[in-house]
């Protein structure tokens, strides 16, 4: 029997989706904050702070999608149909968000594409939150296919996770702006980040209480046997990160709030993974039942182990090239 690659694939995919949530998270957050900025000059700076990297950030979503298809095809074939409309709205939102980067500079009616940038970011984020909520709630399955209805995703819990993700990406976006800008815009971003911190804390609390209530497996995972003894650091570290974020937002002018916000997102993500593992079509099929053939996973693993570090190399490099505060007018001259 060959080496079992399923855990490694699960880790790589989880990492890819996490990279997407972090990186496109702050892009989309900037998009959602966009219309509320103090003035047009600030909006130009906000756009410029993400323009050179948004495309790269979005590539992690494609990796997550096709990676799931390649490594856990059964999950792809069941989960994606279950969220037919959220996926549609996400894709349409991402289209209107993405083209705005170029269109707004050529168009005479810039306002129009500014709205497209905002609405696209908002719709895509909410739709991703709905997908998350649907996933956590569990997906009805018959045989090897989704057996629910066209609007099976439309539940109060999914709407809550949708709103929660808006708060989460908003927080990342605001902290990114604290990191990348200065002066009045930075002060404004700081205020927004504080508001979003309260929002995110509230959503994290609500989702953490609600999830074990509706899902027995999640309750068992967190409170069964001696599990609480091993898992107590998760909420404690999350709480500490919130405290650090709040303090650093009061005075830091650089990366600390952004790092703290990324930490909070990481803990929320970890909490989710703990709740769901090893399910990948909750709560019917686990990772092993959904996995592609060993030959498929092995063929792809050889290249991935070689390529993923290189990809991370580009990531670091492209962020390094565009390091420092964005400047008015001549940010990248």
């Amino acid at each position, binding site marked *: 029997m060959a080496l079992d690659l399923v855990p490694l694939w699960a880790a790589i995919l989880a990492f890819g989706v996490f990279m997407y949530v972090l990186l496109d998270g702050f892009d989309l957050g900037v998009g959602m904050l966009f219309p509320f900025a103090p003035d047009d000059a600030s909006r130009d*700076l906000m756009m410029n702070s993400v323009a050179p990297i948004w495309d790269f950030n979005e590539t992690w979503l494609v990796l997550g999608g*096709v990676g799931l298809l390649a490594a856990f095809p059964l999950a792809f*074939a069941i989960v994606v149909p279950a969220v037919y409309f959220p996926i549609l709205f996400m*894709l349409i939102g991402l289209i209107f968000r993405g*083209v705005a980067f170029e269109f707004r500079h050529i168009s005479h009616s810039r306002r129009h594409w500014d709205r497209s940038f905002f609405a696209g970011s908002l719709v895509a984020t909410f739709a991703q939150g709905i997908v998350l909520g649907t996933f956590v709630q569990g997906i009805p399955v018959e045989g090897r*296919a989704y057996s629910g209805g066209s609007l099976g995703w439309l539940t109060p819990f999914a709407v809550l996770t949708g709103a929660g993700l808006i708060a989460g990406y908003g927080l990342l976006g605001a902290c990114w702006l604290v990191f990348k800008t200065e002066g009045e815009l930075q002060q404004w971003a700081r205020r927004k980040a504080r508001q979003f911190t309260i929002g995110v804390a509230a959503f994290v609390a609500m989702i953490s209480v609600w999830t074990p209530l509706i899902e027995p497996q999640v309750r068992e995972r967190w409170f069964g046997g001696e599990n609480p003894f091993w898992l107590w650091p998760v909420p404690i570290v999350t709480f500490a990160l919130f405290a650090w974020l709040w303090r650093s937002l009061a005075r830091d002018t650089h990366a600390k709030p952004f790092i703290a916000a990324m930490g909070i997102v990481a803990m929320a993500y970890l909490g989710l993974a703990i709740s769901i593992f090893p399910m990948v079509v909750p709560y019917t099929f686990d990772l092993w039942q959904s996995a592609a053939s060993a030959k498929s996973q092995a063929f792809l693993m050889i290249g991935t182990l070689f390529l993923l570090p290189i990809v991370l190399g580009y990531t670091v490099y492209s962020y390094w090239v*565009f390091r420092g505060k964005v400047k008015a*007018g001549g940010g990248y001259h």
Partner: protein
Amino acid sequence: MVDALLLSRIQFAWVVALHILLPAFTVGLASYIAVLEGAYFYSRRPVFLRLSQFWLRLFALSFGMGVVSGIVMPFQFGTNWSRYSDLTADVVGPLMTYEVLTAFFLEAGFLGVLLFGRKRVPAGVHFFAAIMVAVGTLISTFWILSANSWMQTPVGHAIVEGRFVPEDWMRIVFNPSFPYRLAHTTVAFYITTAFVVIGVGAYYLRRDRHVEESVTMQKMGLGLMAILVPLQVYIGDLHGLNSLEHQPAKIAAVEANWETRPRMPLLLFAWPDQAAERNHFEVAVPNLGSLILGHSVDAVIPGLKEWKPEDRPPVALPFFSFRLMVGIGVVMLLVTIAGLVAWRRGTLASARGFQRVCIWVAPLGFVAVLAGWVTTEVGRQPWVVYGLLRTRDAVTPSLQTGDVAVSLFIYVVAYILIFGAGLYFLARLVRAGFRGEAELEPDAPAPTPARPLSGASRAD
């Protein structure tokens, strides 16, 4: 009958047809920009820099649209074709994932440097970024056509409980139709871009604008076409012979050939009648079909009646789309010859009639790419994996007709808006012309104090 299957097919055709227009342009343009950057890097002639900056603005816009319309594609496999995903992912999934890992990240990582980094990185690094973006687009073409070709000529797998399981990856990746499809498509993309470049040059020359830049563009384009257009005729012939060997039903549909026979005529025109199993209004050249496909008048070419009616592809679409593609190829060959003659005579800048033709021909590459795609994809029907998995067995089981009607409507409206705006903005960038020249169009966007920094506007 209008059902989720039919609407899903229309939806897939719609989103992929509009998406393919962008790689058809950006694959060639990325290579052209890399060549221009290289020419400037080594020669330091300002004309190459001006050309590169101009085309980068169009590239940024097109590439952005290609990215966002491309993200739609893999999700279509999940939303509408989940049975296909479940049954074939073990084979096609890794190919698509390799596309992301080797191509998309490479393109995206260096695109920012290429668009925004000219003043931020050393000149050599900027040139390197241009090469990496171009290489990325070509690697992407490699993987996606490998996956597509495997669906056309599936080999190297076993079928276990109805699912395709890989056995030999070399045979899967380099499946029988892949080398021909890769060569044919890549060359088609380069030709498409080159005719746009030639056409934009013609647009300026007819207005006596940017003469030095335009003549340089046209010479570069024509020089490449002198090689690629004849080469494409040769590759296309090989690709057709390969299809005859591996997908004879497709060739029978392309030729609207119902009977298996030697001395098959070549139909210049006909009206195929699928139900009556014959053609109306045939205009034919005797024996030429056998001569082209079998390289002998006595070559026996299989006809559609070899297959049961339910195993035959639709005939009319591949028949007409193939003739459209070949017709465009002939026009391109003639334009290339005329351009080379004008170049040799030294009359490129003043050849008004030729320049007008170049403007008309500029969009034809896109039409030919779409026609070729229709030929090969419709010709594969009724199969999604040729001979093994029917399209109707690939659709998502839970899908309701109403679901797809709504999503199709939204995709159609959104794409008309976005692609309409994109085309309009590309045209405006062309009209605005080269920056730093005295003749910016009056309606060109006025520079604002906080000059926008998007690639489309500030690659100068």
